[in-house]
């Protein structure tokens, strides 16, 4: 079960992700700062080739370079920012599905 992470504690968030990554075929590599504090994580699919990793890292560095401009514009703390591409979990039972399930039961009880 995931518990609420405070937006003021990014290290805790990274540690939780690191722990969850162990359950999947994913490699988590820490990004540490000057004083060995945990700044971030690289998460890669296990078995990725070196060229593929380098390409992916190149894209990440580009995004990171653009971040100081993006964050103030969008008005969100980057740690809490939810990318617009994240849609609803496709497995979530929708209100329409529930309505039909329940309507059947209500018909039965009438």
């Amino acid at each position: 079960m995931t518990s609420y992470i405070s937006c003021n504690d990014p290290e805790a968030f990274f540690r939780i992700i690191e722990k969850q990554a162990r359950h999947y075929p994913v490699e988590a590599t820490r990004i540490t700062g000057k004083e060995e504090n945990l700044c971030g994580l690289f998460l890669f699919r296990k078995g990725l080739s070196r060229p593929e990793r380098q390409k992916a890292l190149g894209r990440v560095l580009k995004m990171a370079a653009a971040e100081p401009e993006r964050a103030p514009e969008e008005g969100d703390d980057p740690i809490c920012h939810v990318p617009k591409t994240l849609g609803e979990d496709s497995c979530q039972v929708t209100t329409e599905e529930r309505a039909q399930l329940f309507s059947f039961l209500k018909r039965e009880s009438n």
Partner: protein
Amino acid sequence: MNKSNTGNASPKIICISSGKGGVGKTSIAINLAAALAKNSRKVLLIDGDLGLANVDVALGINVRHTIRETVEQGRDPLSLLIEIMPGFHVLPASSGVPEMANLSHEEQVFLANTLEDTIDQFDYVLVDSAAGIGESVLWFNDWSQENIIILSPDPTSMTDAYALIKILHSRYGKKRFNLVINSVKSKKEGREVFEGIKAVLKRFLKIEPDFLGSLPVDNHVVKAIRNQKPFLITYPDSRASIAITEIADRI
């Protein structure tokens, strides 16, 4: 039905889940195994609730060694099996071990490979999964060839069963689901509940489940559970026993 395994055919692996807890998974899994064994099939029932074992409690058996020893020490699962009656064996889980409910990917792969080496001698392998939609529930369902979903005629059970099916279909590509409706007032109610959830599954997920049957509300079931015995063995002529035998014949 399949003939008893001569060692050439692979066993049929069936996962029994529900989403919601307390709808009768363990009781149905145990009695289904007993019904198959009574028909001269060799059955292994795996307690898939790896951290909060139920099967041993429901059968009143004392367990010293569990599947935890396979995961942590590489112990051969064959040495852990408990014979309940001729043809019916149980692979017990551990109780009060949260780590077992959250196995890592490597541990899951190891367990699956080890189990596959163990199960060849059986005709059927039934997995009594945990409640909910946690890791172990999903990967046992993914590992199995067939998926039985148990639900009862109430909104929470139907919603949770639907949610579980949706996850297994959307994320794991499962297309075939066998539904058993438990605790019904009549066969008619069982059929109606099935048709109700089938309509929703068909409309939104484009899948058509199969109806394995329904089990009636039956006092004999409650008595058998309290006595920690399968109702099929203790009350073989009860309505529940007749129903579970019919379900076993359809598998």
